[in-house]
Every structure is written in C-alpha cells, then in structure tokens.
C-alpha cells in the first residue's frame, strides 16, 4: 500500500529505488518514534526480567551456600518441598488470609469514609487530610508505633484507654488484651488496614465525585430512598473503582514485608511468603528452595494480575479512545 503510493507520487523515477527509500525512511521514522522508549524498556528488562529468569533456573537446583559440594540439579524437588513443607504451606495460607482480609476490610471502611467525605461539612478539607495521614507514615515506623505505642500490653495506648475508661466506672480490673501474642496475625491485619484504608478512600472518593449527579437528583425526585440510590446508582458506578482499588491494594499487600518483619518477626504463624522467602535464603541459605517459593509467588500473582489487568484495561480503554 505504501509502496504503491510512493510509486504513484514519484512517477518518472525508477520503480524500485524510491520505494526502497520510502520504506527505509518509514523504518527510520518508526525507530525515531521508538527511540525515547528504548532506554526505559531495556533498563527494565535487564533489572527485572533477567533476575527472574535466574530465579527460575535456581529453583530447579539443589543449592545451599553452606553446603556448596552438594549443589546440583534437583528437578521439581524444591517445588514439592514448597508445597509439602509445613512452614512454607503455612506461609502461603497466611499470605492469602492477610491479603484478602486487609483488602476487603480497607475497601469497606474506605467506602464508608468516602461516602461521608462526599458530603459537604465544616472542615472537610482538614478531615480529609487527617484521614490521609496513616498512609503517609513510613511503613516501618507505622509498624513500630503499632507494636510499641499502641498494642504493647503494659503501656500501649489501647490498654491505657481501657484502664482509663474502666476507672471512670470505678473498676480497677480493666481488660488488658495482648493482641500481639494472643492474635498476632490480627495485629498485623489491623495495622495494615489502618495504613491502606486511606488509599482505598482516595480512589473511591474520586469515583464518587465523578458520578453523574443529574441521575441521582432524578432518582431523588422520583422518591427513591437513599439506600435505593446507593444500591442501584452509586454502587454500580463505583464498581470499577472498587475493583481497581482492591486489585492495586492486593498487588502491594501480597508483597508486604515491613509489617510482618517489624510487628511479629514472622512468629506464631504470621510469616507470609515474602518473609518466609527472605528467611529461607538470607538465614537458612537454601537458595534453591527460596527460588522455588519465589516462583510460586509469581504464579499466584499472575493469577491475580490477569484479573487486575482486565480491570485496569477497562478503565484504560475509555481513555485510550481519546
């Protein structure tokens, strides 16, 4: 097609030479378009894809750096070990529980907060700023604050408030729960929900504010109850924002390391896969096993990611149609 156009536009010249010129010029143009993209693309392939290929190779090796003489091909034994080793199986289970509960809880609370912030009231800007604050504390610092300043059983704020409230009613035997040792996974979940709720709230608030108000007003005029409006207008509109928030949150929380590391050091069944892998290669020096566990995480992430990509894509398509 382009060759034909070139031939027509350049009548009088020989047929082959200009078409070759045109084609090479076109190719040069395409490369000129691609050029700004290449540094980023090449850099990313080298730094992220190459190491993963190496991980994939190591995952089939029997390799413990403390016993270098026993290094060799291991077949699928590392993968079998990942799925049968009680600790690693527990880590897979913990990762799923942690991710699902944190994402769901922060989405629900974030939705409630977004609905409240969508209304006009005095000091709304300041309330919004206060609500974002948890997201802007360095995760390690947040985990330390939860561990020592809030959840500590003897002088943490939560038990302190319980003591104070009970003393108001004349009781000197207030309940003093110790979440960190009684329900450590719950402690991790609570601190992560606290950090991630603002993220969900921001995305859902943006979704609410992009809601077409005329249909809501029409529904109100028709006598629809606030619940009906929420159920049949607001929620369907928010669906893709809920999905986006949930899936982006899931990507980050599956990879969480800071909270588990700081709050419980992976003890008492709180070690998730990132923490277990860190332990396996950094302290146990089981390189082959750690790599196999890493590959398992990637496979799990790919499953979640195919859903994530579909959601992001549906939002993205609208914009790309510009």
């Amino acid at each position, binding site marked *: 097609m382009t060759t034909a156009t070139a031939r027509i536009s350049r009548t009088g010249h020989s047929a082959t030479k200009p078409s070759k010129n045109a084609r090479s010029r076109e190719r040069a143009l395409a490369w000129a378009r691609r050029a700004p*993209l290449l540094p980023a693309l090449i850099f990313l392939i080298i730094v992220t894809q190459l*190491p993963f290929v190496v991980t994939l190779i190591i995952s089939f090796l029997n390799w413990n750096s403390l016993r270098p003489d026993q290094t060799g091909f291991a077949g699928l034994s590392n993968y079998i070990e990942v799925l049968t080793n009680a600790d690693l199986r527990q880590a897979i289970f913990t990762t799923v529980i942690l991710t699902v509960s944190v994402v769901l809880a922060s989405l629900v609370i974030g939705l409630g907060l977004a609905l409240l912030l969508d209304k006009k009231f005095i000091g709304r800007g300041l309330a919004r700023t206060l609500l974002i604050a948890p997201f802007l504390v360095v995760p390690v610092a947040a985990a330390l604050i939860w561990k020592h300043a809030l959840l500590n059983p003897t002088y943490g704020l939560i038990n302190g408030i319980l003591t104070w409230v009970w003393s108001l009613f004349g009781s000197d035997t207030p309940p003093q729960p110790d979440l960190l040792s009684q329900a450590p996974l719950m402690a991790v979940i609570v601190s992560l929900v606290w950090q991630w709720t603002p993220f969900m709230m921001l995305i859902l608030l943006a979704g609410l504010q992009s809601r077409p108000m005329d249909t809501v007003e029409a529904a109100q005029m028709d006598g629809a109850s606030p619940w009906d409006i929420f159920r049949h207008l607001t929620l369907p509109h928010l669906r893709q924002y809920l999905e986006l928030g949930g899936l982006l949150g899931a990507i980050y929380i599956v990879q969480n390391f800071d909270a588990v590391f700081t709050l419980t050091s992976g003890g008492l069944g709180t070690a998730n896969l990132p923490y277990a892998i860190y332990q396996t290669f950094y302290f146990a020096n089981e390189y082959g096993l750690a790599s196999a566990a890493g590959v398992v995480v990637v496979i799990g992430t790919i499953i979640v990611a195919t859903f994530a990509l579909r959601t992001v894509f549906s939002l993205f398509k609208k914009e790309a149609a510009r």
Partner: protein
Amino acid sequence: MSTLTPAAPRNTPPGPTALNAGSRRRIFGRFGGKSRMDPTRNNTAAGVAAWLLALLFAAPVLWMILTSFHSETDAATNPPSVAANLTLDAYKEFFGASSGVSPWPPLINSATASILSTVLVLVLAIPAAYALSIRPVKKWTDVMFFFLSTKMMPVVAAILPLYLFAKTTGALDNIWFLILMYTSMNLPIAVWMMRSFLAEVPVEMLEASQIDGASLLLTLRKIIAPVAMPGIAATALICFIFSWNELLLARVLTGVMAGTAPVFLTGFVSSQGLFLAKVCAAAVVISLPVLFAGFAAQDKLVQGLSLGAVK
C-alpha cells in the same frame, strides 16, 4: 417535597427528566421547607461521623507525635499521661545524645537513594511516556501492559539473583546498586503516571504547533511542559515516597555503609530500659519527608497512585 411535586411520568426519557428534576428542585427548594432531602441536616450528621472517624484514624499519628515530646517515664504509663510535660529529650536521644550513634548517615543514604533514583526514573520515564502518548509507537498499549506486568512481579522473586550478583561483584552495601534497584521499582509506575499526565496535553495545540513549524524543543517547552509540569512533580514526589519507605531491598542489599533510614529504624529498638519516646521521635523524624511529599502531592495523589486510571 414529594407532595409538592408529582413524580416524573414513567415514560419520560431520562435526559429531560433529569433536567426537569434539577430545575424543579431549584424552584420548589426555596418554598419546600425542611424535607427528607434537606442537605444541611444530613450533612451535620455526616460531618460529625466523618470528624470522629478522621480523629480515630489520625489518633495513632497524633499519639506518636505527642509521645515523642514526652519523657521516657511519662511515655510508658498506664493509663496514658496525656498532659505530661513536653520535652525534646527523645529527639536529643534519637540524634545520639547519649549513645553517640548518629542517625545522619542512614538519613543521608535514604535521601541520596530516594532523590537520585527519582531523578533517574524521570530521565527514563518522561521520554518513554512521550513515546506512549504524544507520538505513540505502534502497539503502545502492549508496551504499557509490559511495564505494568513488571510491577506485579514481587520483589522476592528477583531478590536472590540480585543479592548474589551484588555479592560477587562487590556491589553489596553500595548505595548506587540500591539506587538502580529503586529506579527499576518505580519506573513502571512512573511511566504509567507520566503517560496519563502527558495525555492531558490537548491534541489541537500539538497539531497547531506542528503546522506552525515549531521545533520539538519549542513544543516541549511552550506546550507540553506547562500542562505536564504538575504531573511530573507529583510523579517525582510519589516515587520519592516509595523509595524512602522501602525496606526489603535495603535490608538485603545494604549493611553498615549504605543502610537506609528504615533499616536503621528496625535496629533502633533496644530491649533494655524504656525506649518508647525515642522510638516515637525516630518515627516522626523519618516520616517527616514522606508527610511533606505526600501533602505536597495531595491534589494529584489519587491520579498518581491509581496509575492515572482515576482522575
């Protein structure tokens, strides 16, 4: 209100109904008195609820700040001593008054790693975003999803080869290696954010400048930069936050020389004696840059964090 205005007939098409509803509300709203739809009453309840929840969510942060200004003995009481005397002792301790351990090297390492990786990210991401939005390559959507897919790969799946590479080449405990890691960590997000910001440059203006024969440099400076600048700033701030917060890579790839502030913080808690005020002071100091960056980027925070999918 519903007694004053008849319900819209069922067969009215949605467009005009919506319009009618709006105008009717405006007309009758003034005379309708208090009704179910009265916005002020609803909002007071919502406002009170929102404020209570906002204070509940901010309480750990506020408590952290208050405790950091208390003495160690006042910090560790049950019930809490809210009105205890304020002091800067915890901050003096954090900066090594009695231990002699200065937090400055890790803070400077964190700043170096975060700022330099952010600069590198921008240098790589801005041209890439240009080639994905303003003069898009063929199949640019595929390229976009390749970038995103690298972000979905957990760090733990690549960290062992990186660690082994660093160990054999002597790049372990070297801040430059960490900078490269942070660049790759943030680059996909930055490309997505920057593309969404560059896509806001009006096509008509780009065409007009092309017709007028403006050079690439002039177009970049006069047309693209003014629209994209707030977006570039927001992208930089968000990348800075992610790098500053990072723990796993820093913990594995650095040691005494290149250790960052989060790594320093994890080793900060001593098992002996009271340390709560000191930990709170440390948490405040280390979170300050993130708080500033986050509030500076507040307007574009959602668009950035949602990778440009939400405006």
